[in-house]
């Protein structure tokens, strides 16, 4: 007597067509057909499982965390600041002097004239000057106090974010984002991958940074969308 098909084989046949031998067996074996029907029904019900309510009072717990991170406004306080608001926040004189110096350095190095941090950075004064220019600038500012050093750190973080924002905008534009998803999904996917790589590298340095986390998550989602666009156009989408 021919042996029954294993459950794993039958589980595969939920998605795939049986080969000749498997089909012949199924034709003559009501037990295996019953098992296969059961597996198909199980898969259908899994796909339609309803949502599940979270446990008790989870919003209150979440709300406290959101408040602690400044992601929702505490009662009586203004809402969280936008990126633009952060950029115009008041700074000390020490910061202002150094920020002005860095800005002049960047503009003088040609970044401003070629568009801030061009897509590839090739040929920009910024890339050519390297970190040595900034080091010189910092050295010329003399010994910094703790507060001033913190200001410099905050400034460079701000610049880093700004640079990433600019980079993201350029990549998105290149990917056809600005034209309403008319770009080739393969190109979009590759560009998202490059952006993801930059974002992940930055996250190594600042894993808790909300901006960087947001950037990486958003790019992941956009890359997923690009991947779906790729598979939707592929003739062998359901390959398994």
């Amino acid at each position, binding site marked *: 007597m021919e042996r029954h098909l*294993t*459950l794993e084989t039958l589980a595969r046949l939920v998605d795939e067509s049986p080969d000749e031998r498997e089909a012949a067996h199924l034709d003559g074996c009501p037990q295996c057909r019953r098992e296969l029907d059961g*597996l198909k029904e*199980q898969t259908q019900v899994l796909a339609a499982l309803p*949502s*599940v309510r979270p446990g008790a009072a989870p919003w209150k717990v979440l709300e406290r965390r959101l408040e602690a991170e400044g*992601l929702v406004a505490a009662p009586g306080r203004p809402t969280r600041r936008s990126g633009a608001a952060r950029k115009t926040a008041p700074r000390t004189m020490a910061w202002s002097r150094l920020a002005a110096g860095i800005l002049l350095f960047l503009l003088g190095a040609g970044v401003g004239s070629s568009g801030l941090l061009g897509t590839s950075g090739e040929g920009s004064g910024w890339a050519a000057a390297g970190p040595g220019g900034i080091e010189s600038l910092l050295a010329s500012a003399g010994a910094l106090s703790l507060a001033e050093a913190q200001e410099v750190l905050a400034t460079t973080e701000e610049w880093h974010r700004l640079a990433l924002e600019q980079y993201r905008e350029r990549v998105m534009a290149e990917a056809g984002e600005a034209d309403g998803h008319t770009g080739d999904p393969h190109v979009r996917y590759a560009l998202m991958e490059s952006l993801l790589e930059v974002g992940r590298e930055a996250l190594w340095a600042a894993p808790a940074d909300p901006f960087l986390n947001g950037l990486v998550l958003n790019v992941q*989602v956009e890359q*997923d969308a690009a*991947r779906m666009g790729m598979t939707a156009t592929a003739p062998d989408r359901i390959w398994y």
Partner: protein
Amino acid sequence: MPVPSERELIDGAAQGDRAASRALYERYAPRVYAVVRRIAGDEDLAEDAAQEAWIRAFRALPGFRGDARFSTWLHRIAVNSALQGLRGRRRRSEVQETLPDDLPDPGDDESADPLAARRLEAALDRLPQGMRTILVLHDVEGFTHGEIAERLGVQPGTSKSQLFKARARMRLILKGSELDLAGERSSDRETGD
């Protein structure tokens, strides 16, 4: 007073508006919790992963551009949070030797439906972690094997083979007589595959 649109809620929450944030949460909390709960396999990890997903989502909200549907965007965040929660959890025995107390006996189900949703949920918790993750991502959440492979760092073929094992294990669990059927399979269902 008109009900705010989803876009208005998103914009409001991105600005830190408490009411908009809560409205978004209330609207999508069941969906977020469902996916993390099924991947996590237990309540504690699910609660943590769901919280983490929401925190990440609110952090990222100012950058949400509306290219994808909000529900899709949030769903991806939830899946990633659940998977990261699993990775961070201390390794533990994957195979439980006894059925959990809340797994109904197949004969006790008043609906007489062996595939009732609550039995499926309980059976999912009985699966080894790796199988459960792949089964949930593929059969419940609709990910392709390529997407699963990328997220879990495995080959697509591994995702497929684990899926088939998971479906088979689920079938055995749902039939409520795993050991007997395993014996039957070893003696009666052998194949030359």
